[in-house]
């Protein structure tokens, strides 16, 4: 079938994808947008017992411009919503969003005048973690899920080609 058969799997773009994705998925620089109770569990995941560093994602960057992953940890209310949107907009591509805990995912059991019913009403989300708050194992699982997702992406996406 022409040239492709000679090149096999070694065609240039796919190889670049793999190399880039491999590098990306083990070096998440996260921006913890910590608001509420889930932050306590987030602290536990950082510390030595659960050790998020094993996944190469331990390093927080407190400037959104330097971060790849936005962790929205906890309830977001109407007053805070513009700030969250602004933080997201400031992040450079490629960027991913993890919605941490049920409040960020759907508003949880706070269904009233003050709360936003899930951050996906404001910004796009890649991985949702249920739980109130999620246990550390769930958080690590979400991180692995995100790594899987990242490993399937292509660099062409960010060039507007795909």
């Amino acid at each position: 079938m022409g040239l492709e058969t000679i090149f096999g799997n070694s065609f240039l773009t796919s190889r670049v994808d793999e190399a880039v994705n491999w590098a990306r998925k083990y070096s998440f620089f996260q921006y913890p947008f910590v608001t509420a109770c889930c932050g306590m569990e987030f602290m536990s995941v950082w510390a030595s017992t659960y050790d998020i560093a094993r996944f190469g994602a331990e390093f927080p960057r407190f400037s959104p411009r330097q971060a790849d992953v936005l962790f929205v940890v906890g309830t977001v209310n109407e007053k805070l919503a513009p700030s969250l949107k602004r933080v997201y907009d400031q992040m450079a591509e490629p960027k991913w969003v993890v919605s941490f805990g049920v409040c960020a995912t759907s508003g949880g059991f706070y269904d009233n005048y003050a709360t936003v019913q899930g951050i996906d009403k404001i910004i796009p989300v890649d991985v949702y973690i249920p739980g109130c708050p999620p246990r550390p194992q769930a958080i690590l699982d979400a991180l692995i899920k995100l790594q899987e997702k990242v490993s399937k992406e292509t660099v062409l996406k960010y060039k507007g080609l795909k």
Partner: protein
Amino acid sequence: MKAIESLKEKFSDKIISHDSFAGQDFITAKKECLKDMAVFLRDELHFDFLSDLTCVDYKGYPGRENAPRFETVYHFYSHKTKERISLKFPIEETSPNIDSLTGLWLAANWYEREVYDMYGIHFTGHPDLRRILMYEEFKGHPLRKDYPLKARQPRIPHED
């Protein structure tokens, strides 16, 4: 003499009622005498600690159809005598205002801002009465009984 007795004696004409529930004293008085009572409590009876300040909306409360709609509630504590006392001041819906205690307790500042934010009670003499928990654009006062539980007022548009 117990603090409550001296308070009742001093303000006998202003006190509307004195309820005792589960060992706790609640004194309901006219709102004009709030400041005098607070000063008397603090300076004479050693209630130096404003434990809490809040408000209650009694709209639709069974048995209070003709009573004033709001009531501000003050919980005092004395570090010296270790006593607690609670004062309540009914406020009509038509004139939702009461004196501010900011000159007497520094803590009253934020407490009163919260009550203003949640109930729309105006504190006369408050130096900086503006919303504290909700945002400036918010219309209405969420803890009033006639504010619907789920009436949201988003600051930025939500997508579905």
